[in-house]
């Protein structure tokens, strides 16, 4: 495991996470995340040979409900909460560029 996250690595994580960070933030996170990961590395001391991962703690599995359509009577209210909306639709920036 890397001992310290480089600036480039932090920039890449920020891009994956869709976060615009300032240079100062990138420097801070590079140090802090390295510290935290260093601390977390102690998990390697624990013998987990033949141990299953935890995926659920109360023993439930495959909780199903009837596949039935329910009415939604406040759709316009919900769409109306979007920062930009028009005629019951959510307005967003272009997804594809004109050049294709």
């Amino acid at each position, binding site marked *: 495991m890397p001992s310290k*996250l480089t600036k480039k690595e932090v920039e890449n994580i920020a891009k994956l996470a869709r976060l*615009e960070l300032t240079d100062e933030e990138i420097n801070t*996170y590079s140090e*802090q995340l390295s*510290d*935290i990961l260093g601390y977390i590395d102690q998990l390697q001391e*624990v013998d987990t040979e033949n141990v299953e*991962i935890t995926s*659920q*703690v109360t023993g439930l599995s495959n909780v199903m409900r009837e596949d039935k359509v329910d009415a939604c009577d406040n759709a316009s209210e919900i769409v109306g909460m979007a920062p930009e909306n028009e005629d019951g639709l959510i307005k967003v920036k272009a997804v594809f560029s004109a050049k294709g």
Partner: protein
Amino acid sequence: MDIQKFTIKSTLNSLQNKEFSCVDLIKEIFKRIRKHDGDIHAFLELTEKAAIKQAEEVDAKIERGEKLRALEGIPVAIKDVIATKGIKTTASSKILEQYIPPYDATIIKKLKDVGAIIVGKTNCDEFAHGASTENSAFGPSHNPWDLERSPGGSSGGSAAALSAGFCLASLGTDTGGSTRQPGGWCNVYGLRPTYGRISRYGLISMTSSTDTPGIFAKTAEDTALLLSIMAGQDKKDATTLGAEVHEYHEQLDLPLKGMKIGKPKEFFEDSSDEESVAVVEKSINKLKELGAKIVDVSLPHTKYGVPVYYIITPSEVSSNLGKFDGIRYGHRSPEANSLFEVYTKTRGQNFGPETKRRIMLGTYALSSGYYDAYYKKAQKVRTVITKEVEKVLNEVDLLVTPVSPHVAIKLGEKSDDPLAMYLEDVFMETSVMAGLPAISIPAGFAHDMPVGLQIMGKQLDEVRILSVAHQYEKVTNWVDKYPKL
């Protein structure tokens, strides 16, 4: 009217017997809030008008001689990560600063169904990420016992509001200790129920595999009453459990005689604050005097709880907070020139430092090449911790530990050191990993600040935990102590 002395139970009696009106009660609550919340900052939003109107209806009902419902007329405060229809719900984040949910969380609906009166929404760490409320985008809350100190977190506003007499109960959430730790630091009860015992529908999700609503109340009986009302299966939360919901508040007399209570030695090794430890030891002795058998036990993997938590939580956070992208609700950056920038600028400009830190950490832990080393490893160690505590709980009925190695920290003391803040959760994670119920109960004072005792039990064994809390309360007077404002 001395609100500090009121409990839910006593207040319902007083209202029904017309000792005072519900309007007078609610007005007195808001008078206290106006007078003192400038110092404490427990609230982000108040709902005075609606509360008074509701109180008038309660009074009319009393006049007609009708019987009050289980929480009718009782003022409650709600952590701001819990959706309240028509009332701003910000999660203490700038990104949701103007968000007004179009629906109620299941637990809010349940409280309303029995007549509770919401007085306001309480401050917390942004998206419940923290242990001191200092990560709130709107400034920290202050501990009513000492304004220079934190009330704990993340549900610090809810604990402070109750401790200050701004309500008679409050709701929090507990993902990694966020109800129990502030409960301990503010001299109130803080219950984390079994995972899945209370519906999470309408909680702004943080770590879905460990999130649960939490209950703050002034007595064990009030805590139990709230649990009786809030517990149960919900088709809107597939992780809720179908097990029978007890009338917890009517089953508080399980005899302590013959009960086996384990004392895990790893929780008593931190001697940084000997006075706090002495208070906890004394409260455990009291349980012994009440007839319980105290057994020394060991949970050697306790120390790995925090590192496991700080992989699992950021991982789930990075996924759960993906929905805050400036598209469907909340804030959208006006400076974005492309769809990509709508995402990056909205999130970069409106999430606070700890939220970003967790999103980054989680994104890293889940990214290709590191998934096995971090996330998978953490989920395996989680299994080890869970099996270890389950094994011990086969030999004893309950476990008792300190809530925190020390009393409430000073504001600013650890806010620049994220790792030091993470370690504040050190005694909280065992129950989180295993989905066990645990409660923080008022157990005494050190350095003139409250100290909490944590009682942890088997899954769905809330009856036993609350019984022990109730019987301890009967022979001590900690719940009668209030901060001087």
